[in-house]
């Protein structure tokens, strides 16, 4: 089912994105931690791959990657999946 597949892809994308963000915040107060920087780079690469995959299947997540019909397509983030067709 398309909705479940989208939810699954979004979940792995968000998980990788969260790791990047958490390490990014940590590096604000530990800017010289090279180990944390390496971990961030690992997750950032994962995130980029998952993002490309998601956008190819379900459309743009940022205004850089699509406009018009593709950008306007439902669901929007607050839509509940059942009524998002």
């Amino acid at each position, binding site marked *: 089912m398309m909705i479940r597949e989208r*939810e699954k892809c*979004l*979940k792995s*994308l*968000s998980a990788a994105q*969260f790791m990047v*963000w*958490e390490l*990014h*915040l*940590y590096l*604000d*107060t*530990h*800017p010289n931690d090279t180990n944390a920087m390496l971990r961030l780079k690992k997750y950032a690469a994962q995130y980029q791959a998952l993002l490309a995959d998601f956008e190819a299947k379900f459309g*743009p*997540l*940022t*205004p*850089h990657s699509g406009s018009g019909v593709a*950008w306007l397509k439902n669901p*929007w*983030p*607050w839509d*509940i*999946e059942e*009524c998002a067709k």
Partner: protein
Amino acid sequence: MFQYEKKLQYPVNIKNPNPKYAQIIISQYGGPDGELGASLRYLSQRFSMPYAELKGLLTDIGTEELGHLEMIGAIVYQLTRNLSMEEIKRSGYDTYFVDHTTGVYPLAASGMPFTATYLQSKGDVITDLHENLAAEQKARTTYDNILRLVDDPDVREPIKFLREREIVHYQRFGEGLRLATDKLNEKNFYAFNPSFDKHCNKRK
């Protein structure tokens, strides 16, 4: 600048609408310790921050808070879908409904509309960081109280995520405060405003 990303930081998918829960949780949208106040507080304070680590920290946490505001909006919206007039009257949601129907408006659970008096931007590094540490704890307590009042796991999961973020932000602000005091003359941490008085930095 800011640009939109068309996703939530953490998913919100609430199967069962519940206007009573919406009326409680909207406090984290526009209430005294809510996400709107948090984002405005940090994104305003950052302009007078003298140290790069703190400019970065306030920009990043302030930005994340905007994402949390969006999550709370999504929770309130999903909790008030497809309501019957009977449910609206019975739940006590009628007092909100009369002014906003099912639109999302920034106010506290008590009905008090959002006000900038919920936050401070004092132009003093030490003062502002203490304000932020307190703000994170106040938000954490509010999320704890929401978790005492709400049983539905669909609602509790994103609320638990937001509660955890308050704790991480508290940790980061604590580290920010340490970074700031490390740069100051330790005889005078609280006698000067490091954003305004230039002579209070540690002598090299």
